[in-house]
């Protein structure tokens, strides 16, 4: 647990599965100013393009992954009045049905919580250095980036400043 500005922040990269309910209770526990909490949990699907998969393996860039996530959480805190944010991202081997990522945002009102959760998630998909490899019966292959994810992240910078353009 740390504070970014006056906001409670839990940012963690881990190999182990996590319990989203236990983690999110940290944002409301002992306080009465939270009026809205949005949680997003990304779960490993059992199929990819109609073919069943055995597992996903997530590779990441230690050090950079943490700093990219922190940077985007700080940006979210500057843009919306948030009282707390949680980002948990797993790496290593993940089995179908297991959680991969958790983004939780708490605020006094729902608009900020919804927007900040989407903002953080869109940037996680396109800017945080993680790569998914899928294991099928026929072998392993890297999942390709999707243009729709880039477009989802783009919409935030269109109304934001131009400072992300160089990256």
């Amino acid at each position, binding site marked *: 647990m740390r504070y970014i500005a006056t906001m409670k922040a839990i940012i963690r990269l881990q190999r182990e599965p996590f319990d989203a309910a236990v983690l999110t209770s940290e944002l409301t526990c002992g306080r009465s100013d939270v009026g809205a909490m949005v949680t997003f949990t990304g779960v490993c699907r059992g199929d990819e393009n109609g073919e069943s998969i055995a597992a996903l393996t997530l590779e990441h860039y230690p050090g950079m992954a943490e700093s990219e996530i922190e940077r985007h959480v700080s940006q979210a805190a500057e843009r919306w009045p948030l009282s707390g944010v949680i980002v948990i991202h797993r790496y290593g081997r993940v089995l179908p049905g297991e959680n991969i990522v958790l983004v939780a945002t708490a605020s006094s009102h729902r608009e900020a919580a919804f927007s900040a959760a989407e903002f953080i998630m869109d940037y996680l998909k396109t800017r945080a*250095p993680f790569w998914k490899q899928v294991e099928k019966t026929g072998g392993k292959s*890297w999942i390709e980036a999707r243009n729709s994810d880039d477009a989802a992240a783009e919409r935030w910078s269109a109304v934001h400043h131009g400072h992300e353009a160089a990256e």
Partner: protein
Amino acid sequence: MNVKLRYFAWVRERVGKPEEMVEVPPGIATVHDLMTWLSSRGEEYAYAFDNAKVIRAAIDHRHVRGDAPIKGAGEIAFFPPMTGG
């Protein structure tokens, strides 16, 4: 100049190693120059950087574009577009 290079995902698989220290010859000024120079170092590098346009780069943990200068960099990473989340 000496710099640490790191490779991830299929760039790492194609190069055949996760990281290495290299002595960059004079005249290599940008990330793009560095990729072109790396491509000339052997078959595995030529294969890895074959489609250089899709490869992303970071200098000291920050995303950069191909025209970014590499002077003063401690660690330069090359990787495919990210697929986390």
